[in-house]
């Protein structure tokens, strides 16, 4: 029997509320298929499955909030019968999910748990019915005043709380702020950042891009941002210690280059979902992926794999007019590359002073995983890659 669990949706998201099942018992599923939609603090996420099987039981009802790692459904492996699965299910290792009140605190990684554990530790008794009711009414059960025995929260208490709390469209924003706060606090608490920056001449890249774009209709136009992403991905080939994760006291290099692209949300907030295998994509494909990702991120519709597996993050704040970005690493990643404003500035080369389009690229890196020397080599390689746009 296969247990389909709520996957990690990034280090700042430790729970999700089930919004929709895309499959029903008896349906067969294939790798990469979207089987459920889960609401997180940042977006409604399409949760994909990475195994082949037949849906057997759905264990979480719509509207319930569950921690990352909770079993959402069980599936039959190819060839397995429902009877075999049912007998296995009675085995001692009982799954935690069907409990009406999955403790949300359990799934939080230790560092993130620290700030949020305090209020949960002293949680009062809550009846399963009240918890379900609170979930239906979108009421935060931890903020409900209990009037039952020993301060227990009853369904009436939930009703009262629901009546008092005005509908708040800004809830998502508040939740997103909290999630960003948790991840960034963890980053600054745990990661010894070092910062490097490098000015990159962009004349060749821009001239090449202008020529290319003139050949194509607007629907196939490539932005300089796509060029920068591809150059980062290729430059990482020589600096594998910047691409991966710091986990359990050691660096784990990633086997692919999945770049988290920091996308600002128009209503406020930030999300950095991944474009997969950037180093292997053509610029046209990469541009298409970037455009699609930005659109879906802003519409609040992303896939679980995009949320969970970026191996490095790239942020571009140049359009807001800043010269350079010294960013905060998104744990458990170990590096973040920033691009500032693209602008014409004085530039000396070969003893001559000229006006050249320049961009400042920066690297924030985890000193536990790499040293400044490697970081410097990465930025030098990035600069070099951007001098040969036709090879990107």
């Amino acid at each position, binding site marked *: 029997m296969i247990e389909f669990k709520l996957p990690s949706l990034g280090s700042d998201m430790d729970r999700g509320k089930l919004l929709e099942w895309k499959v029903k018992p008896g349906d067969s599923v294939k790798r990469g298929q979207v089987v459920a939609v889960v609401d997180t603090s940042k977006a409604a996420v399409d949760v994909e499955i990475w195994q082949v099987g037949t849906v057997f039981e759905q264990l979480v009802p719509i509207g319930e909030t569950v921690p990352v790692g909770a079993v959402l459904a069980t599936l039959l492996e190819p060839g397995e019968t429902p009877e075999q699965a049912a007998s296995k299910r009675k085995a001692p290792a009982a799954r935690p999910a069907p409990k009406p009140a999955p403790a949300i605190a359990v799934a939080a990684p230790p560092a993130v748990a620290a700030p949020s554990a305090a209020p949960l530790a002293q949680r009062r008794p809550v009846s399963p019915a009240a918890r379900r009711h609170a979930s239906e009414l979108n009421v935060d059960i931890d903020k409900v005043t209990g009037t039952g025995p020993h301060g227990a929260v009853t369904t009436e208490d939930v009703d009262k709380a629901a009546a008092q709390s005005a509908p708040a469209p800004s809830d998502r924003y508040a939740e997103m702020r909290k999630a960003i706060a948790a991840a960034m606090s963890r980053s600054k608490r745990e990661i010894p950042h070092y910062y490097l920056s490098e000015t990159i001449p962009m004349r060749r890249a821009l001239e090449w891009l*202008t020529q290319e*774009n*003139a050949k194509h*209709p*607007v*629907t196939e*136009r490539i*932005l*300089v*941002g796509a060029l920068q992403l591809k150059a980062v991905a290729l430059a990482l080939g020589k600096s594998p210690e910047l691409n991966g994760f710091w986990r359990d006291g050691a660096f784990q290099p990633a086997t692919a280059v999945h770049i988290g692209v920091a996308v600002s949300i*128009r*209503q406020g907030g930030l999300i950095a979902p991944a474009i997969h295998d950037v180093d292997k994509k053509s610029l046209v494909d990469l541009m298409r992926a*970037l*455009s699609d990702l*930005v*659109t879906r991120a802003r519409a609040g519709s992303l896939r679980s794999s995009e949320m969970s597996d970026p191996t490095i993050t790239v942020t571009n704040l140049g*359009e807001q007019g800043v010269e350079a970005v010294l960013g905060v690493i998104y744990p458990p990643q170990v590096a973040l590359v920033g691009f500032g404003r693209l602008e014409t500035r004085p530039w000396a080369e070969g003893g001559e002073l000229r006006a050249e389009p320049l961009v400042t690229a920066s690297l924030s890196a985890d000193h536990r995983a790499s040293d400044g020397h490697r970081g410097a080599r990465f930025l030098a390689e990035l600069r070099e890659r951007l001098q040969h746009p036709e090879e990107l």
Partner: protein
Amino acid sequence: MNETEIKARVLEIIKSIAPELEEAELRADRPLRDQIDLDSMDWLNVLVALHEKLKVDIPEADYGKLVTLDDLVAYLRERLAPHTA
């Protein structure tokens, strides 16, 4: 399509990308992208939408002429005008 119609279509497209846009606050004679915080991806999406809805393909070389909403409307009017030649 007259100027008013073009302007309405353009605003409709911009609103689909920047839904928070307050038309009354938009100055048609001031730089458009600064007023409503359109980044290059948003701007490209505006151009793609113009391409799809009005069948006008705006070359990159013309971006410099399209600073304000007035500029954009005038440019589109010119491009959409039936050619008499």
